[in-house]
């Protein structure tokens, strides 16, 4: 079995981010994409549908209104090879309802995720839970003698860490909003 590639085949594989040798795996990266679109159910549907139709991966979606009431903004998180993500971006742009598609992954941006978490506690470990909550700057938003519901916001990594810290106590319920992201405003001189 000859496996020598022509220079053109090597060029194509490199450009596609595909491995040249067997056994190597292609590089998968997570991308954060902001989509500004028409504020309508139809537009939302079409974006969600695209991921299904084209077999794209979709890790999280957060969507809401913007300062312009006719528009909504969506933050999508997807993972794939550079080429796959490029297709995602182009296909999103092709939709008639999308006004702007912005891959912020490699830019300066701030991101937040909201997490509501219901954790079990006892009188013995209550202060331990509260200490952790303090470190993560969380708030208790509902409480019963057995459980408390906590609100934490922050970058996704922080939320992951918080959820990890709560697991030993026993999580009853967990709800995460998905990431929202925004480019940083450029400070003069930066």
């Amino acid at each position, binding site marked *: 079995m000859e496996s020598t590639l022509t220079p053109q085949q090597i*060029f194509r594989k490199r450009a596609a981010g595909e491995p040249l040798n067997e056994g190597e795996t292609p590089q998968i990266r997570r991308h954060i994409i902001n989509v500004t679109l028409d504020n309508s159910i139809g537009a939302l549907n079409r974006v969600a549908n695209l991921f299904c139709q084209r077999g794209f991966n979709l890790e999280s979606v957060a969507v809401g209104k913007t300062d312009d009431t006719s528009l909504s903004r969506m933050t999508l998180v997807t993972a794939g090879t550079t080429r796959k993500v490029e297709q995602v971006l182009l296909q999103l742009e092709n*939709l008639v309802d999308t006004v702007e598609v912005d891959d912020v992954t490699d830019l300066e941006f701030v991101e937040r995720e909201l997490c509501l978490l219901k954790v079990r506690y006892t009188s013995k470990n209550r202060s331990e839970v509260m200490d952790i909550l303090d470190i993560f700057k969380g708030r208790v938003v509902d409480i019963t003698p057995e459980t408390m519901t906590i609100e934490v916001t922050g970058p996704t990594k922080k939320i992951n860490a918080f959820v990890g810290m709560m697991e030993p106590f026993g999580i009853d319920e967990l709800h995460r909003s998905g990431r929202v992201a925004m480019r940083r405003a450029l400070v003069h001189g930066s």
Partner: protein
Amino acid sequence: MSEYSLENLDTPSGDGLPASASSSIVSQETVSQETMTGAEIFVRALDAQGVKYVFGHPGGAVIKIYDEIARIQPRFKHILVRHEQGGTHMAEGYAKATGRVGTVLVTSGPGATNTVTGIADAYMDSVPIVVFTGQVPTHLIGNDAFQETDIIGVTRSITKHSFQVKRVQDLTRTIKEAYHIAKTGRPGPVVVDLPKDILFAEDTFRYPEGVALRGYSTQVNIVETQIALAARMISESKKPLLYVGGGTLNSDAAEELTAFARKTKIPVTTTLHGLSSFPENDPLSLGMLGMHGTWYANQAVQNCDLIIAVGARFDDRVTGKLDAWAPHARVVHIDIDPSCISKNIPVECPILGNVKDVLDMLGPLVEEKDTAEWLGQIDVWREECPLAYEKDDRLRAQGVIEKLREKTDGNAVVVSDVGQHQMWTAQYFKYVHPRSHITSGGLGTMGFCLPAAIGAAFGLRLEGRDDVPVISISGDGGFVMNAQEMSVAAAHRLPIKIIVINNRFLGMVRQWQELFHENRYSHTDLTDTNPDFVKLAEANHVVGLRASTPKELDEAIEKAWSINDGPVLIECQVEKEEMVFPMVPAGAATGDMITERFSHDHDV
């Protein structure tokens, strides 16, 4: 422009004339202070849009529109189709033959779902059509009301865009936008869903002059450095090849392409949809490439050092095993759709833009090339393995196609269905005029052909080209899938030559069964169940003829061509077990073509 003129059209804005030609008109026709029903607004809007034909079928949800059509006698002509799928293919055929936008009007529920195959077909082949579907009244939507289907949901992944009109005030703007989106950029189908109450609600009439779609821009700036790079790659190349797809015809660039190829002496191979964009009687033409392309076109692909892809999309029926395709070629790709570029093969020189504009810019930058050695090599391949079939006194499909070519000298619009006959129609007709070949490529829809031919015939009639015959070429399997539309051709006296290649088999599937499934002809033999095609024609008011020898075919063709005031069907009873060759098996490398029958299988 193609050689046919559109000048005799009196349309001000047109159902698809290029944007530059659609000058704004403000007349009584586009503005009216009287109030009227949504249905009347709809009918007047189509007139204001310059629509010439509506392929439709009535029903409860759109009955008010039909009432207005009868009452106000619009300028457009409504064609009553006999199945909504037929209507969508007619709209496609009309669009493909003329470059205009096809229009379909159907009722809710089953009327709407019957259009789904045609919409998917138009989506895959980038055909501009607008499909208006009736819908239950707004207050009943979501209630599982009688004849309610969420057609927007059903068609979401097979439309370029879709609208549901929620207020009568939005009706004209939506119609204007629908036609704009269908036609511009990479063309495609648009669905407009019309709830019944909107058609009864009243408003004044105003047809907008332009569209304001902030998320949709058709403005492309062709990057000059990319053009320069392409010119350099062409001048550096010794063995260049033009690989031409349907985007070339969509942008009316056949003339530019032909001039470009002739100037640079670069050989041309086309996809199924690229056929007719370059004259196949030119020595530079290699015919079609890909699964059933010519041996020499595919050899050229595997050996060339540069591919210039023009309005093509590197479809799997073209490339076969992607990794092994054109292994030595640098690639230039010209296309209007950014998501098409580098989708299947990363290209060194992408050029985003309308094919016509790009060729206009690139043409002057390239020099005449000396490709004599490369063309000489191609000629060797040509002689090594030409397109061939057994020539004896039996009637064979390939011979039928050659006969039709001879009869018309290429002055015809040829529409084919899906299967073996489609491939022979692609291989043997030798197209010379732009837009003279129409078929269902991306979706491969059996039943496409006859209605598409009807749509094309209406298009030619509109353009005053009635003298150009439309030839519909189907297999016996696919023909019956929309045979009911024959009565439409008869009703409008369309002089279509309807050819049924009857091999008493679902031939293409039989071919795969012979090659890859040990001759088990599971459910492909139609011998005992086919209708009598001549009687079927006659039952639909169509003249029916039959030929089972080459001599009978000659007579039938003479007879058919003497009838010009209506359709004629010729059933050609051909060899049962013919094969389409050459062939690249699905998923195989383009270099591994089968060029003849595995003889051991055949002999036993």
